[in-house]
């Protein structure tokens, strides 16, 4: 694994993580895309040092391991489907209430909205 590749993976992971931590779904989608690319590069580098083309280079000694390339191909397709689905969720969220902010859990909001929650907690019935 070359240092450049390692550095690139590190950058993709860190930027992706930063974006995923946002509240806006659009930024999360961008983050997922970057993280996905980071992971794909990681898989590619896991196949040890790059060598000749796996199939054409028959007979050569320095062959690239073809397995990670097959894995990356699958991972890319899955990543595409996930991003497409997330985009449609973001669009739907926008048509419903005009934004794509990821909201809080119902319980969290209920507790946050109720200043007297300590007195009657668990007494809903």
């Amino acid at each position: 694994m070359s240092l450049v590749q390692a550095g690139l993976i590190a950058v993709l992971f860190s930027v992706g993580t930063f974006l995923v931590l946002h509240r806006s779904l659009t930024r999360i989608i961008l983050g997922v895309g970057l993280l996905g690319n980071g992971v794909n590069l990681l898989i590619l580098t896991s196949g040890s040092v790059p060598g000749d083309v796996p199939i054409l280079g028959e007979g050569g000694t320095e062959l690239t391991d073809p397995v990670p390339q097959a894995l990356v191909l699958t991972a890319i397709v899955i990543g595409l489907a996930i991003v497409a689905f997330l985009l449609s969720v973001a669009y739907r969220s926008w048509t419903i209430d005009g934004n794509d902010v990821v909201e809080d859990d119902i319980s969290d909001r209920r507790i946050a909205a109720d200043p007297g929650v300590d007195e009657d907690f668990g007494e809903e019935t």
Partner: protein
Amino acid sequence: MTGGLALFVAAPLAGTALCYVFARNTALQRAVAVTVTLGVTVASVALLVHVDTVGPVTTSMGGWPDAISITFVADRLAALMLVVGNVMMFAVLVYAIGQGARDERSPWYAPAYLALVAGVSGAFLAGDLFNLFVCFEILLMASYVLLTLEGNDDQIRSGTTYVVLNVVESLVLVTGVALVFATTGTLSMAELPDRLAALPDGVALGLSLLLLIAFGLKAAVFPLFSWLPDSYPAAPSPVSAVFAGLLTKVGVYAILRTQTQWFPDTNRTLLLVVAAATMVVGVLGAIAQADIKRILSFHIVSQIGYMIAGIALGGVAAVAAVVFYVVHHIPVKTSLFLVDGVVEQDEGTSQLDRLSGLARRSGLLAVLFLVPALSLAGLPPFSGFVGKLGIVTVGLDQGEWWIVAVALTVSILTLVSMMKIWTGAFWGAAPERQRVGVLRHHPLMAAVTWFVVALTIGVALFAGPIYSFAERTADDLRPGPAATTGTGAP
């Protein structure tokens, strides 16, 4: 049976394609879905018998060598999970057809449901780590669609959390896959135990934690459970029933495989603490809720803790207890959600403060709720007692008294929260505005609920044979490298 394992994934996927073709014809879609799920259910029972009497079955795609081809492996554990999973999938499908809710009549319900069947079956049968990841993606993708099918405000809100967290989980999982491949040079589940045992301890620990985080989020263990109680109640009852019964258990299945076979005893203390926290937080969350679905959703988390505790304790006896616990838990949890679906269909709500006196109006419905509820709490005549007894016995044998104390306390608290549903919804006087004795649910819904509750009673009645099967299963899972490294649990 050799060569046929791919059918458990291929048949539902072909059904998915057919359902897309018949998108305008709900009746035809239902016929395809019922035929396919019934077919794979029958086939998986045959597979279970075959695996138990003859031995594990392996299928490699395309004639490639085992190490690099797509491999499906059915050992006792996989075959058992396949049977339980497919029976539940079939039952819930019939229930959903009976209910005929808005989302079930959507042209995209049947295809997504069949894709879910394919993903769950594939995850149980996967013979290599990447294949497991792909099957996880299939089932997650199908679950995203089912969860947000109506596309209303509530579903999009909770669906967003669910989707984003599971997407991040997938990325962690695939990172784990890449690092496992980088360090061991293989992804085959048959070869990994030996290769992983040869790694330095620190590397193995890192890999095990990475996989544990990925599968732990799927299984909803303590710090990673918060998506579950929020997203499951937003789905329609049949969908949340099948999610509650099966999806988290796929995560437990993956943890069981990886932690017992690949990293024996690596994370014992961590897993025990996580298990205790999962049990306690889950049940306390359940007690605080005021909606049947939300109470039941928190219970999923709590019950996962018992399974993780068994996995943490390790050894053949503990794994046998976990296998039995999972087999008991899936129909129990599913049936509770199915009962909730009937209540919602009749009353239009699952909020406890708007329900009362259901037992007076339908004694049978009350029985249908009470049997799995008491079983979940672990009272003696029911299947939950046997499962909890197994885990508690192993805990005492290994001197981990504190996890036993936590498990028993949580069991009492489970009973408390079940009684909360009982007193809130079933007990008391029927409100006067309702006509007594008129229940509006479809007979198919009641029939399926009866069937699943009967299954939970069956698990209790045949606890002996099932437990001895679980012990044989656990014996298969005895960690391979344990003999060389001397890490076998007592």
